[in-house]
């Protein structure tokens, strides 16, 4: 990457730091926050009630990048948590068992937890908090696609039944928030938050579209991670809107520069499917970038933004109903991008003109990883694009063997180079 999107990276770091600091301050003042997950976080609703939002997944991946995760995992395992469970969950539990104290910050206790069925582990995870803190837990049923061949669409009777159930649950969640805060929902505040998310999502979508063309403007795993962090932590806020509009502007400038000064050797355009390798975050990306690879697109952006990067536009005139419908559609999009990845990758790799597809399955996350090997087979049956399947973890350094990983990556690039020299068959 000749012109990295530096500004977006720095601004993201600043914003996430201030998010952490606000939570730290809250913890110091014995305040509490709502715990929710990135897929179906209900951020706009919580914002309308001014309930601070804590996203444990983001906190966990930060501990993996900083190296603090290993101690948390070890601590949880010593309490009997098995080695085979989601390591996000395990590190989080380790943190709670150590008094919500990390080397650089403290975290507030939960006043409410929201776990959608986008990932079933969310529920098990939240049940553990419930045992620790006895706070209200709202389990949010979000029915996904029943038949991979025929997803129901708005207008179908089946969709109407799901939507009715969603709306009813949203109303119940609103009553719960009203109970917790002692105030009524202000529909205007909800509308405003939804409007912010509308603008963020639309911009995010444009940014992703930019990378579909050549030359690519950003690495979807490296810079993509920064975009995701802000999207999730600042959903429904003006700060989020500003960040994304700056980020888009930066990418447009990078694109102009790249067109004027093209790279000596065009990078290998790669599509990433799966989850990042957070314990070796930079090293993992470098294993590709030093060989001339650039991730132009990533399925991670789709599900880890809770489907938000599709740019769904809420109808701010009827905020509650539209919130329910948006939650159903975006979360279903997130679920489809995991469970139905295999059916969508062929179009995705064609759309981003990929030279190769990298699948990274992790032990921690069966939601995303279970289907990857088959998705790869399905892609291979339709296309001759080179693929690489790696397995490691997103949290636990012990599960990662960099020597093995680099060897496989080297072999993959030997294939990509051979193809480029000989012209793809």
């Amino acid at each position, binding site marked *: 990457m000749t012109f990295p999107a530096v500004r977006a990276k720095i601004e993201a770091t600043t914003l996430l730091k201030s998010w952490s600091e606000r939570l730290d301050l809250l913890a110091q003042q014995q305040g509490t926050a709502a715990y929710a997950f990135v897929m179906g976080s209900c951020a706009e609703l919580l914002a309308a009630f001014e309930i601070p939002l804590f996203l444990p997944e983001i906190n966990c991946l930060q501990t993996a990048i900083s190296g603090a995760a290993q101690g948390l995992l070890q601590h949880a395992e010593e*309490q*009997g*948590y*098995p080695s*085979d*469970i*989601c390591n996000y*969950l395990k590190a989080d539990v380790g943190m709670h068992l150590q008094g919500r104290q990390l080397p650089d910050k403290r975290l507030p206790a939960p006043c409410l937890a929201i776990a959608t*069925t986008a*990932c*079933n*582990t969310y*529920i*098990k*995870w939240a*049940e*553990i908090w419930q*045992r620790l803190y006895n706070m209200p*837990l*709202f*389990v*949010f*049923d979000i*029915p*996904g*696609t*029943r*038949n*991979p*061949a025929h997803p129901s669409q708005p207008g179908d009777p*089946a969709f109407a*039944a*799901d939507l*009715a*159930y969603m709306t*009813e*649950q949203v109303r*119940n969640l609103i009553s719960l928030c009203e109970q917790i805060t002692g105030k009524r929902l202000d529909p205007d505040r909800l509308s405003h938050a939804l409007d912010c998310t509308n603008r963020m999502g639309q911009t995010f979508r444009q940014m992703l579209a930019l990378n579909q063309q050549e030359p690519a403007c950003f690495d979807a795993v490296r810079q993509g991670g920064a975009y995701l962090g802000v999207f999730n932590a600042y959903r429904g806020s003006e700060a989020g809107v500003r960040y994304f509009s700056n980020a888009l502007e930066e990418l447009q400038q990078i694109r102009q520069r790249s067109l004027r000064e093209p790279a000596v050797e065009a990078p290998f355009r790669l599509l990433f499917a799966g989850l990042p390798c957070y314990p070796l975050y930079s090293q993992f990306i470098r294993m590709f970038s030093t060989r001339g690879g650039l991730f132009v697109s990533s399925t991670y952006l789709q599900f880890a933004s809770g489907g938000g990067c599709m740019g769904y536009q809420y109808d701010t005139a009827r905020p509650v109903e539209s919130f329910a419908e948006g939650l159903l559609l975006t979360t279903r999009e997130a*679920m489809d991008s*995991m*469970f*139905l*990845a*295999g*059916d969508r990758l062929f179009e995705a790799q064609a759309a981003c003109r990929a030279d190769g597809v990298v699948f990274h*399955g*992790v*032990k921690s996350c*069966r*939601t995303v*990883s*279970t*289907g*990857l*090997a*088959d998705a790869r*087979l*399905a892609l291979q049956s339709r296309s001759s694009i080179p693929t690489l*399947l790696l*397995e490691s973890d997103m949290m636990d350094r012990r599960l990662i063997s960099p020597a093995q990983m680099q060897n496989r990556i080297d072999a993959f690039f030997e294939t990509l180079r051979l193809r480029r020299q000989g012209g793809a068959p």
Partner: protein
Amino acid sequence: MVDDCFVKLIFVVQTIQAFLFDPARQECYGSPMSLHEPLFFGQTVPCDASLEQMLAACRDLLCDTGFPTVKRWQEQGGTVLGHFQVYVPEEIAHAAGMLPVKLGCTTGGSNQPGAHFGSYLCSVVKQVFSLADEGTLRPDLFVVPSICDAARNLPAIWSRNFSTPCRTLYLPQNCTGEAAENYLQQEYAGFAAVVSEVTGRVLDTESVRRSIAVYNRNRSLLRELYALKSREPGKLAVDECYLLTAVGSLLLPEEHNRLLEQVLPLLALRQSQQQDKIRVVLCGCFCEQPPLGMLEAIARSCHVVSDDLLIGLRWLTGDVALQGDPLAALAHAYCSSSSYSPVQHDAQRQGADLLVQQVKQHGAQAVVITAPKMCEPGLDELVPVVAALTAAGIPSCVCEFEQGMTSFELVELQVETFSENILYAGGQS
């Protein structure tokens, strides 16, 4: 007249007759010759058959990797619903004349990673896929309840590899209000619509209601079997109880009912084993089933007085109402009188507390927890469960397992150590 020295033949014939009297079902059967052939077991057992012979027949059926009962049903033109663990309302498929088969209870099928899966996955997902992939079992409809993250990937993988239809069943996790019950009734209606599409039969109220009655009977017989095991565990080892229950996953409920009706009186007459064994509750078997060898190893040192083996077959704890809309009745039963397993969130109760109650209710001394490898929901509950047991002063022992394991030395080592330290080491000196 049929030779009545063959018990199996009798209940097979009665089952068939019951079917034949139901005009809606007749199309399943080809020539009348099939009347005189044993339908399911592929073998006959005399009516004075001993309990041991019946158990052996159950074992043969369960260990037969060729799925003889299912094959035979399909050869005769019957359609098969294959469904994944834990609970699926089989009544809906049964009412349309399908043979509901609960997958993942048998010993067959490869549990190797295979080409389609990565390494970090439980055996049961791999096994169910490999059964279809190797052509051993091809249900006409495959249904997966959205029990866990791994299972939720199965329908897409299935539909990419096989042409037979499949569907996810989104059972509610938030069963707190009326909304969930209404939603579930709709979800069942969607399931019923697929069943109709596959079988070409429109489901009417009467036929679903009839099926509910058959399953009510089945659940009540299983409750009797479990009550006997709790009362007199020396009469029924856990592996035997498993055999009697698990064949239900491969038979029509009518036929399973006949088997249980034959077996229960024989069990009552059985001599109880008097051995030094501890009374335990076995838990952790709600989805992936421990291999028989492992249950035998546990039975060598323990009297299992209660367990969650194949809990899905006993999911509804009471009778489903025979009045009103049958789908509404099934939905109501699910939301109001379910068993517990880690794949089902329950806003009112937690698994750990229920287990402590279960131990007390059955007068058990200890708990053996079988922890399925790579099973997220099961393993996530391990610590809370052990903590609750410890707090209640109940000793527990955790053994990891997977369906395809063939070596039980470690299990034996752990269960034996556990049991001998409860039985002997403390008291005498």
